[in-house]
């Protein structure tokens, strides 16, 4: 029963990883940008959530009402002000600039909040659990997973059933021709980053309720998100959720074998999948 428990806990943890990964996947899909600062933006969202919930005396999940639009606005400005200028035929400039951004965000957070680990107060949600048979599952991981599924479903619907999603796909296919349709790609990229960071806000706040965080942990979150995207196959949002689940299960099962193995087991599974299926498990079938 312990093993079943580990697998289920891991699967639920995968929901959090999918929330980390969805934004990465979205911006890579739309503009071929690998955002090295993505993990630090997740941590920044957690701090914004902390400050908002403390200042207003509200539950961190309620703080999302403010943090989501804040992160979206930051995303749009960041894209139009900086990142758009790095995009071109060369993949290196965006990597370097987002790497620099990662360092800057960490330092700003360090200045503002110190290196001491912080945590958001989720109240009763943190300890509440539901019994399923002989298993006891935390309400917070379940809620995280349900939200992740909802977010992925929402993104998927937006991508394939709205004019905005159509514009995202068109720009992703061919930027020049998309411009001919009257789409300003700079604006579309700004909207994509806004959406990606809105999702990041959700991921950051669930992270900050679940565990303590400090300004240095962004890199690890980036890696988990990145691994989930690659395992699931680039450009496939449901695949990203599956990737997150696989990574989460690998980690909790690894930790069950030996607590020191948690992170390593995730990386090993990632590398194994990459070796067998270099395009991930569910790559987008190119039309």
């Amino acid at each position: 029963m312990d093993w079943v428990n580990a697998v289920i806990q891991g699967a639920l943890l995968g929901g959090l990883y999918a929330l980390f990964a969805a934004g990465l996947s979205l911006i890579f899909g739309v503009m071929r940008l690998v955002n090295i600062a993505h993990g630090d933006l997740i941590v920044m969202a957690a701090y914004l959530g902390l400050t908002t919930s403390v200042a207003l005396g509200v539950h961190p999940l309620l703080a999302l009402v403010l943090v989501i639009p804040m992160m979206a606005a930051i995303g749009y400005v960041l894209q139009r002000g900086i990142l758009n200028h790095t995009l071109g035929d060369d993949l290196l400039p965006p990597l370097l600039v987002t790497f620099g951004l990662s360092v800057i965000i960490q330092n700003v957070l360090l200045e503002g909040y110190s290196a001491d680990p912080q945590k958001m107060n989720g109240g009763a949600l943190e300890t509440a659990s539901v019994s399923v048979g002989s298993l006891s599952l935390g309400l917070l991981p379940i809620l995280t997973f349900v939200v992740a599924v909802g977010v992925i479903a929402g993104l998927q619907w937006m991508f394939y059933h709205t004019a905005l999603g159509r514009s995202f796909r068109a720009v992703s296919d061919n930027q020049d021709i998309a411009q001919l349709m009257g789409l300003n790609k700079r604006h579309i990229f700004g909207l994509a980053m806004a959406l990606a960071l809105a999702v990041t806000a959700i991921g950051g706040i669930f992270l900050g309720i679940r565990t303590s965080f400090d300004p240095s942990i962004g890199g690890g979150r980036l890696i988990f998100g990145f691994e989930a995207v690659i395992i699931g196959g680039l450009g496939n949002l449901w695949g990203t959720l599956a990737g997150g689940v696989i990574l989460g299960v690998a980690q909790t099962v690894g930790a069950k074998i030996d607590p020191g193995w948690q992170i390593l087991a995730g990386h090993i599974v990632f590398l194994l999948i990459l070796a067998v299926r270099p395009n991930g498990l569910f790559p987008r079938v190119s039309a």
Partner: protein
Amino acid sequence: MPEPILDIRGLDAHYGDFQALYGLNLTLAPGEVLAIIGSNGAGKTTLLRSISGLMSNGAAQIRYRGTPIGALRADQVASLGIALVPEGRQLFPSLSVEENLLIGGRVKRAGPWSLSKVYELFPILQDRRHQASTSLSGGQQQMVAIGRALMANPDLILFDEISLGLAPIIIRDIYAALPGIVGGGMSAVIVEQDISKALSVSSRVYCLQEGRVSLEGDSATVSRDDISRAYFGIA
């Protein structure tokens, strides 16, 4: 002569160090259909890319209804009412047939063209509307590319080699649709390798050679000898 809808003066275009157009002059009257001919590499596509804003040029080198547009971005040019049917069709592979058409209508200009009008013009597209655009035959893809441009309700439409790579019977069908498109008063620039096709659908013709205009004339009266000379540069 009425004020030209398009007035190009001294247009230069470059790809890095390479100059593709040299001080090109061209005018187009409202409602006129202009043909552009010229051998491979003459600069026809470069000219259309410049007009549509995919290449940036000196602002005043291209005027549209008197407004300098040479330095505008393609999306800005599109919203002014210029649409391009690009060489090689260039449909969006991730979009279905209907989505390709819908995105063409994104600039939301008022006018006669709508999804149902395009389906009336090319009925086969209606049957295929939920298919991936890449699953269509070349001719059907060209119909989507034309429909996509029409959906913007442009005042000026630019066609870049719409018969390229298509079977003669398909080319005939597509050209048969042209009067229904430009008959409504839309101005058009048609780049075409097939000279007799080009002459038969246009009122005036320009021949390009190595980035310069080597001939300009009335399509009905221009002589074949003059064309061969302008085309191949035989002096």
